[in-house]
C-alpha cells in the first residue's frame, strides 16, 4: 500500500499552509468563448461544390437530425451522380457525434470549432440550419472534426476481381474474368451506402440498391428478382455493361465505386438458369391478348421489348437476319468477354415465355415491310448499327482493308479467313480493342506470336476504350499507339497492302470540346501490316424500309424521328436500340422497355 500522508493527524499549524495560496496565480477565464481544440466537434459546414446530395449522412445520423433539402440552381445530373439536394441539420436533435463526417462519401461535410448559438424562444427556427461552407453564423471558424483517413468509414477499395493470367488467355477465347465468390460478393455489396445514384444514372433504372442489398443479405434469388424488374439481359449486362452506375456511384467520388456490374453478374451466376426462368416469369398475365407484334432484330432492344410484350399476353415474333440471337452482343463482343452460353441463357429466359424467333429472315429481302404492316398490330425495328464506317483515306478501298464489325462477326460465326501475320487497327474504342485482341489470339494460335498495332486518334487522356481493355490488350501483346491520325493505306507496286501511314495528332478537341484534330505533318509513321482494320464507327443499314417507306417516314439528322415512346411518324412502327441512341447494351434494354410500354399503351387505345 502506497504511503499517503492523509492518515497522520498533522500539525496544529496545518491551516497556515493555506497562506501559501497567496503566492499562487489566480485562475481567470475570459468572457469570450474559449477557442476549441483542433478536432472539436462543433457546428457543421458543408462544401457545396463537393457535396452530391447522396444523403448518406442522413442514413447514418443516429438522432434523425438530418433532412435533405432541394436547392434549385445547384447542378443536378443523374449521369454524373449529382443531386441538387443538401443536408439540413436540426440542432435540436444533433448530438455532434460526427458520424456524418466519417461516412460522407465525398468528404464534403465537416464539423467546425464553432460551438455557441444562442436564441430566444421565438427564434427556435434558427435551430434548423442548412450548412454551407460559411458556417452557421457566417463567421469563419477553423475546421474541427474533419474527414481523415483514420476516421473514414467508407471502404474505398473494391474487392479484387480475379482474372486469367495473360499467358493463359492470349491464345484462346475462354472468359477472362472469374467473377466474385459469394464471400467477395457479400463484402463488395456491403460497401454500398444505398444512395441510389446508380439507379438514377442507369438508362433502364435498374434497382441496383435493392439487388445489392439482397446480395449482402445472402439472398441471390431476391437479387435476381430485383434485377429482372428492369433488365432481362443481365448475364450480358453483368459482364459487358458500360456501367454508368459505377460512374455515378457516390463511393467512387474518393475511391473505387461499388463493383455493381460484377455484383449483378454474381447474382445471375449464383442462381440456376431454371430458377431464373421461373423468377422472370413471375407477373406474366394468364390470358392471351390476341394482339400480334413483329420485332425486327433479335438484339437486346428487340428482345427486351419482346420480353415485356409477351408478359402482357401478346403474340410476339422476332425476325432475325442471322442464324443466332443476340445481335451485337453476340457478333460484336468477343467470347472472352461474354461467353455465348450466358447470352443464350438470357435469350432462353425470353423464349421460354413464349417469344418466337424466326432466324435467317432478313426483312426487306425475305419479307417486305408492307407485309409486316399488314399482318401485325405493331412493328418494332431494332436492327442496331451493323455496318462499319470507313475512313476513306487513300488506299482504304484495298481488299485487305477490312471493317472491324464484319471481321468480328466472321470470327463469331467461325467462318474461315486468312489471319494476318501483321495487322493495324484504326480506332480507339472498345470495338477496336475487341478486334485487336481477337486477332491477337488467332495470331498466337496460328503463328505463335502477336503482331498487332492499334492506332487511335485520341490521346490516352481522352481515350474511348475502357482503361482495363487497354491494359488487358497490352498484356496480351497488342501495341496501342495514341494520337495517330490515319493518312494513307500503303500498297506496293504489285498491289499488295504493305502498311498504314499515320500522322501525329497535336490536339483533338477545339476550345468548345468538339472534335477537331490537328496534325503534325513532320511526324509521319509507317506501320507495317498485311491487313488494316477500320474500327471508327458504325451505322445502320436502313435499306429494309425501301424507297417508299423511307419517303413516308420522318427523319432527324439521319436517324429515324421517334417520339418519347420510340414511335416513328408511322403509327404502327416503333424503333429502338442502337439505331436510335448509338451503341450501348443497357441503353438498348431501356429502349426496349420504352417501346414496349408505348406499344402497350397504343394497343390499349387501338382496341
Amino acid at each position, binding site marked *: *500500500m*502506497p504511503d*499517503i*500522508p*492523509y*492518515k*497522520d*493527524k*498533522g500539525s496544529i499549524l*496545518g491551516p497556515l*499552509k*493555506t497562506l501559501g495560496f497567496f503566492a499562487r496565480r489566480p*485562475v481567470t477565464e475570459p468572457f469570450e468563448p474559449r477557442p*476549441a*481544440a*483542433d*478536432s*472539436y*466537434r462543433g457546428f457543421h459546414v458543408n462544401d457545396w461544390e463537393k457535396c452530391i446530395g447522396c444523403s*448518406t449522412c442522413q*442514413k*447514418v445520423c*443516429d*438522432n434523425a437530425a438530418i433532412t435533405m433539402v432541394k436547392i434549385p440552381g445547384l447542378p443536378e445530373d443523374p449521369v454524373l451522380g449529382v443531386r441538387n439536394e443538401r443536408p439540413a441539420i436540426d440542432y435540436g436533435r444533433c*448530438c*455532434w*457525434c*460526427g*458520424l456524418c463526417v*466519417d*461516412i460522407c462519401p465525398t468528404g464534403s461535410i465537416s*464539423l467546425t470549432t464553432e460551438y455557441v448559438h444562442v436564441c430566444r424562444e421565438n427564434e427556435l427556427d434558427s435551430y434548423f440550419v442548412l450548412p454551407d461552407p460559411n458556417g452557421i453564423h457566417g463567421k469563419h471558424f477553423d475546421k*474541427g*472534426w474533419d474527414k*481523415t483517413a*483514420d*476516421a473514414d*468509414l*467508407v*471502404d474505398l477499395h473494391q474487392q479484387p476481381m480475379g482474372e486469367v493470367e495473360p499467358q493463359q488467355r492470349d491464345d484462346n477465347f475462354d472468359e477472362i474474368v472469374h467473377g466474385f465468390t459469394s464471400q467477395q460478393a457479400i*463484402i463488395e*455489396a*456491403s*460497401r*454500398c*451506402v*444505398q444512395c441510389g445514384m446508380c439507379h438514377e444514372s442507369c438508362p433502364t433504372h435498374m434497382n441496383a440498391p435493392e439487388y445489392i*442489398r439482397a446480395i*449482402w443479405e445472402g439472398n441471390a434469388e431476391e437479387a435476381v428478382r430485383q434485377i429482372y424488374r428492369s433488365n432481362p439481359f443481365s448475364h450480358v449486362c453483368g459482364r459487358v455493361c458500360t456501367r454508368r452506375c459505377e460512374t455515378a456511384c457516390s463511393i467512387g467520388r474518393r475511391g473505387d465505386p461499388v463493383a455493381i456490374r460484377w455484383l449483378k453478374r454474381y447474382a445471375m451466376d449464383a442462381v440456376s438458369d431454371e430458377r431464373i426462368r421461373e423468377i422472370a416469369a413471375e407477373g406474366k398475365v394468364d390470358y392471351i391478348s390476341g394482339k400480334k407484334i413483329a420485332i425486327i432484330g433479335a438484339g437486346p432492344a428487340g428482345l427486351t421489348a419482346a420480353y415485356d410484350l409477351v408478359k402482357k399476353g401478346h403474340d410476339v415474333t422476332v425476325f432475325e437476319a442471322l442464324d443466332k440471337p443476340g445481335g451485337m452482343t453476340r457478333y460484336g463482343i468477343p467470347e472472352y468477354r461474354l461467353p455465348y452460353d450466358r447470352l443464350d441463357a438470357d435469350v432462353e429466359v425470353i423464349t421460354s415465355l413464349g417469344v418466337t424467333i424466326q432466324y435467317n429472315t432478313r426483312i426487306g429481302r425475305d419479307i417486305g415491310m408492307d407485309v409486316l404492316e399488314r399482318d401485325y398490330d405493331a412493328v418494332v425495328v431494332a436492327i442496331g448499327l451493323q455496318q462499319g464506317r470507313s475512313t476513306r483515306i487513300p488506299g482504304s478501298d484495298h481488299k485487305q482493308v477490312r471493317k472491324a464489325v464484319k471481321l468480328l462477326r466472321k470470327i463469331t460465326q467461325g467462318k474461315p479467313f486468312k489471319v494476318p501475320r501483321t495487322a493495324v487497327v484504326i480506332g480507339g474504342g472498345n470495338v477496336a480493342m475487341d478486334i485487336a485482341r481477337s486477332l491477337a489470339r488467332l495470331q498466337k494460335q496460328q503463328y505463335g506470336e502477336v503482331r498487332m498495332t492499334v492506332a487511335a486518334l485520341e490521346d490516352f487522356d481522352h481515350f474511348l476504350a475502357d482503361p482495363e481493355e487497354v491494359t488487358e490488350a497490352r498484356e496480351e501483346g497488342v501495341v496501342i499507339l495514341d494520337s495517330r491520325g490515319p493518312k494513307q493505306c500503303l500498297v506496293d507496286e504489285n498491289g499488295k497492302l504493305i502498311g498504314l501511314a499515320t500522322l501525329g495528332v497535336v490536339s483533338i478537341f477545339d476550345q468548345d470540346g468538339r472534335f477537331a484534330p490537328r496534325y503534325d505533318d513532320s511526324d509521319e509513321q509507317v506501320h507495317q501490316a498485311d491487313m488494316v482494320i477500320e474500327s471508327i464507327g458504325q451505322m445502320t443499314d436502313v435499306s429494309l424500309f425501301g424507297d417508299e417507306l423511307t419517303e413516308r417516314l420522318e427523319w432527324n439528322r439521319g436517324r429515324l424521328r421517334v417520339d418519347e415512346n420510340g414511335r416513328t411518324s408511322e403509327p404502327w412502327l416503333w424503333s429502338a436500340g442502337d439505331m436510335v441512341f448509338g451503341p450501348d447494351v443497357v441503353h438498348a434494354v431501356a429502349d426496349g422497355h420504352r417501346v414496349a410500354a408505348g406499344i402497350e399503351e397504343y394497343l390499349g387505345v387501338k382496341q
Partner: protein
Amino acid sequence: MRPENYQAKNHPPSHEFELNFGPNHPGIEGNYAFKVKLNGDTVLSARADGGYLHRGFEKLMEGRLWIQNIALVPRICVPDPVPMEVCYSLAIEELGGLEVPERAQWIRVMQLEMSRLAAHLFAFGGHAATTGMYTTMFWGVADRDLILDRFEELTGGRVYSIYNIPGGVRREVPDGFLERMSSLLDYLESRLPDYDNLFFRNQVFIKRARDVGAMTQEQALKWGVTGPNLRATGLAFDVRRDDPYLVYDQLDFEIPTEPGGDALSRNLVRRSELKQSIRILRQVIERLPSIRGPIRCPIPNPLAWNVPAGESYTRVESSKGELAYYVVSTGGDKPYRVHVRGPSSMHAVQVLENLAVGSRLEDVAQIMFSLDACPPEVDR
C-alpha cells in the same frame, strides 16, 4: 406571515416523517430521488425512486444500427462515459471477431484512466459538498475540467467523447498530446497534497465520514457491491486485474483497499486510486509512441453491417464499479438486445436502501455520495 389559507396540520402521533431527497435536493443531481422515513433524525426506512434522466437506452439501442449506438452509450453515465463506449465496443468486437489493434488498446486504456481520474475528482468533490466543504468540490470540478481539455483535444468532445468504436478508436492521437498529458499529470500529482490537506486529512471530514454508511465485507458481497465501494471493505478485487481486458495485464498498478467499509474508507480508496491512475497513465505515455500500427481494424460499412449472431458478456472496471454489457445479435444490422449492467443502479437502489436504515438524516447525502452512484445510469 402566514398565507390566509394556512391551517396547521395535525401530525401523526408516531413522530414518523417522510422526506423526499431529490430531485431538487442540492445534495443530488438528476431526477433520481430518495425517500426516507424518519423518526426524529433517524432513518427508519428508505426507498429509491427512479427518475427520467436519459431514460430508455436499452430500448433505443435495439432500434439503431450497431455503430449509431456509440453516440448513445456514453450518456448512460455522464461523469464516467468512456467505460460505456469501451465496454459496448468490446462486446461487438467479441461478437464480430474483430481484432483490435494494439495501439488502439493502449489508447483506450489511456482514456479509461483519464475518465477515472475525472470521475473520482468529481465524486469526492461531490461528497465534500455534502459535508459543506465546497472548496473541495470547486477544486475537483476545476481540475476535472483540465482533463476534459485533454479529452476535447483527443476526441473532439469534452464529456461525450464518442471516440471508441467497434474495432478501435476513431482518430490518431494529436501531435504533442502525450507531452501535454504528461504535464497535466505532473500538475494533478502536485495537487494531491493540496487535496489531502484540504479534505482527506481534514478532521472535520474524517470525523463526519467515519462509520457512516458502514458495511462489512460479508454484507458487501451479499448485496452485490463492486468497485471502490467493495475495495473499501478490504477486498482487493478489480476487473482490470482479475478479469483483464485490453492491455491491463501488461500494466503495473496496485489495487488500494481500506478496511472500514464506511464513507471515509470509500473516499480514501478513490483518493488512492487517483495515484494509481496517474501511474498507469505515465506507463501509457511511455509505451504508446513505440506501439505503432493502425488505430482501428477494418470494419464493414456501418450502414450494411451485420454482426454475426451470438451473445457476449463483457465487463470493465468503471470508476463506480463493475460495468458489463450483455449484447445479443441475431445476425442483423441492429442489436437484438443490449443489457447494461451498471454499477450505479445496484449501489443506488438496494445497497443505499440497506445502508441508510438507522443512519441519521444529515448523513444520508454523505452515504449517497460515498457510494458514487450516477443518476442517469440508475434511471437508465
